[in-house]
């Protein structure tokens, strides 16, 4: 079974928010909410600065605390691609999953259920990339099976320097940032 993840090249990313906008239209994310976002980290003193721009979203962790804490099984690990998804018909809106996520990747949909990035599973099942990956004008985002050594994501991880977010939180995130 595949284990889907993302590899994002921060050297190419310009933080244009196309991923954010594409996610909004593709997934009809309600106004005022986002499933993905841009983080910019600048360190140093002018003019000697180092910058990392990242397109961030749910990490679809291998050890997802949002799944563990969910009292109803709404948050679950899907067999398909080991994606972390929310069944909105099981969700009671207790918000434990929001509190459990070190990335603050979730929010409460105006209809009351916990919502977040699905890796565009509806597209992935049709063999397409997630909307954010497909739209990116800098082609900085890559999606695929981390367990398949022939996949582009696996090759990039094998050949480039990379890091994930808050590995110390112990969730084993599946989005990796090339630096």
């Amino acid at each position, binding site marked *: 079974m595949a284990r889907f993840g993302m590899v994002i090249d921060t050297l*190419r990313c*310009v933080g*244009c928010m*196309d991923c954010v*906008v594409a996610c909004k239209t593709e997934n*009809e994310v309600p106004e005022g909410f986002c499933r993905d976002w841009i983080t910019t980290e600048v360190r140093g003193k002018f003019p000697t600065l180092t910058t990392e721009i990242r397109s961030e979203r749910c990490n679809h962790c291998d050890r997802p605390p949002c799944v563990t804490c969910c009292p109803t099984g709404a948050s679950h690990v899907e067999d*398909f691609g080991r994606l972390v998804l929310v069944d909105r018909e099981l969700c009671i809106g207790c918000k434990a999953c929001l509190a459990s996520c070190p990335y603050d990747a979730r929010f409460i949909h105006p209809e009351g259920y916990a919502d977040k990035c699905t890796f565009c599973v509806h597209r992935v099942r049709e063999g397409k990339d997630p909307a954010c990956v*497909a*739209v990116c004008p800098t082609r900085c985002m890559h999606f695929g099976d981390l367990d398949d050594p022939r996949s582009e994501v696996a090759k990039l991880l094998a050949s480039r320097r990379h890091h994930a977010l808050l590995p110390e939180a112990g969730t084993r995130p599946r989005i990796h940032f090339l630096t």
Partner: protein
Amino acid sequence: MAILSRRRFLQVGSVAGAGAALAAARGPAWDRFLGPAAAGDRIETVPTYCDLCFWKCGAIATKKNGRLWKLEGNPEDPLSRGRLCPRGTGGVGAHFDPDRLTAPLVRGKRRGEEAWVEVTWDEALERVAQGLAAIAAEHGPEAVAFFSHGIGGNFLKHTFRAFGTPNFVAPSYAQCRGPRDIGFQLTFGEEVGTPERTDIANARCLVLIGSHLGENMHNSQVQEFAEAIGAGASLIVVDPRHSVAASKAKHYLPIKPGTDIALLLAWMNVLVAEELYDRELVASHGFGFDAFRAEVAPWTPEWAYPITTIDPATIRETAREMARHRPATLVHPGRHVTWYGDDAQRSRAVALLDALLGSWGRRGGFYYPSSVPVPKYGGYPDYPRAARGPVDNPGGRYPFADLGLTNGIREATLTGEPYPIKSWFVYATNLLQAMPNQEETIRAIQRLDLLVVVDTHPSEIAGWADVVLPECSYLERYDDLNTEPFREPFVSLRQPVVEPPTDQKPNWWIARELAVKLGLERYYPWREVEEYLEARLAGAGLSLAEMKRRGVFRGAPAPLYFDDGVPMEFPTPTGKIEFWSPQLAAAGFDPVPRFRPHEEPPPGYFRLLSGRAPVHTFARTQTNPILAEAMPENEVWVNADVARRLGLTAGARVRLRNQDGVVSAPVPVKATERIRTDCVYMVHGFGHTAPGLRRALGKGASDAQLMTRYAVDPLMGATGTNVNFVTFEEA
């Protein structure tokens, strides 16, 4: 806003294509956690091209159950290569924007007071036609000036050519790219054009001077920029602000604003002194090089150091870096280059640097673009000859201006010289945000007999109009064919994807109806725009039906570089690259650019710089619900140390007061390490004051409002606006 309305929490049924194996997966109904497309949804796609900016990328619109759902790049299109920029993707919001104009409006009260009467199209156009006819009768048709932006103005331009005025202007010239194209023409005999003929993808060394690619989101350029970075190109960025591009640079040069020419001269000095330039090219195709050499000899990096604050070792190192990669070194000519009034000369300095590096016509430098030869529509009668020439540049005051100057029209409107201008017809450009010195624009408007605005939105300029004509958004109309020359020749079609929400009309219809009312029906042998498009496409051996299906047609690739067989010709008067310009000398200008210092901000003031954000275009997208959400307002960037010294808290609102006492709307402070201490920066396009732009009203501050001062380029009349200084006031 309907498109982002809450989805049904439970959609029964499963997604088309769900496999049997997946049915065994957890959760009985996929739709409980799936995206929005469910089985039974009627999905249709329509190819078109984007209008969120002038780049005109090929797009594919997807409708779900007849309703616009999303926009994606057309993979067939060489501009987008299947990927739109954030504005293009967010173009969905242009259709759903609740702040759009809905019906033709006629002024109810005095100008500037927004009291309107809704009228029918017939009444509105009748009123416009009568007004224009009266002006033509009294002052001649030349007394009408046509302002436009973008391809949507083509049909209206046609109507006004038929009407008989010679006065056509667009802010994209004198307020944006004009000086650049003049600087390059004076050097190579050719302009950079739109889309820029920059071969960024193949550059081994890319030099950006104030260009903030990545924030400035011209799609193909940004795609190529990322490719160049991915391929390990060496990036040199010159900017007083640590832009996104600067953050990726191998060399970041935090130049003092207004001193770029000094840096460019010093770079040329190093290339010449160290004989690092393309000597072969200079010998075979250079004109006046010895004089040029003598001119740049004094401008050493040591000379430039105190001017630019860039240390000489860095200037030398970067010059050598450029030479190392030549001719695949691209010194980018930029686009919005109207900064200090000496912009054509600065652009010429950029062109000269590119000439020394031999990058013109070379891979990784500037390619030769080509287009599919689609003939013009053949059935039009000849336009009448205007009795008088254009009003904007009397006596050739700006000898190198080759297109109309908006500011020239404004001046003529104010002075009545060389002849009076009595009507402005404005298509899709918000002149109050696009032109410096709003007060001057408003005074000029007050002298008009008739101001007509065609737009999708009740913009600031529309607020001053006598008649406002609501246009369809680009998703609801046909437009002229896009045949812009590019890396690969192509033709693309804009066609309606959805119906306009209310009584908006396409520009071609407005143009034709107005012509009919003006008694110019003979200029419109076609009734429906499809006939026009079909006729033009047939001339190129294409069909409208095929174009409607595919959106884009790609022509046979033509050679891009001298090495591929492009003839090495430079259409300057000397037929060579003019290092020393006889044209400039003859007109009394510096034949080789020289650095002249600009006025410094007085104590306590900071130079106001402005730029672009990737999710907005000009002042035209701030009410788009999707894009407004991505960036609802602008901030004023202030150096963190300065902010601390002045007691400005990050996120707190301040007002900016400029040297002439003009005070901005409140704008949040971005206290940051990413900018020099002698300037502040704002993204252009915010601080709207038009009450109809409800979503944008009161969001951020307008740089245009604070640009009361402008320096006119003596070569070609453009308005440099980085000459304004601001200080802070409590909000």
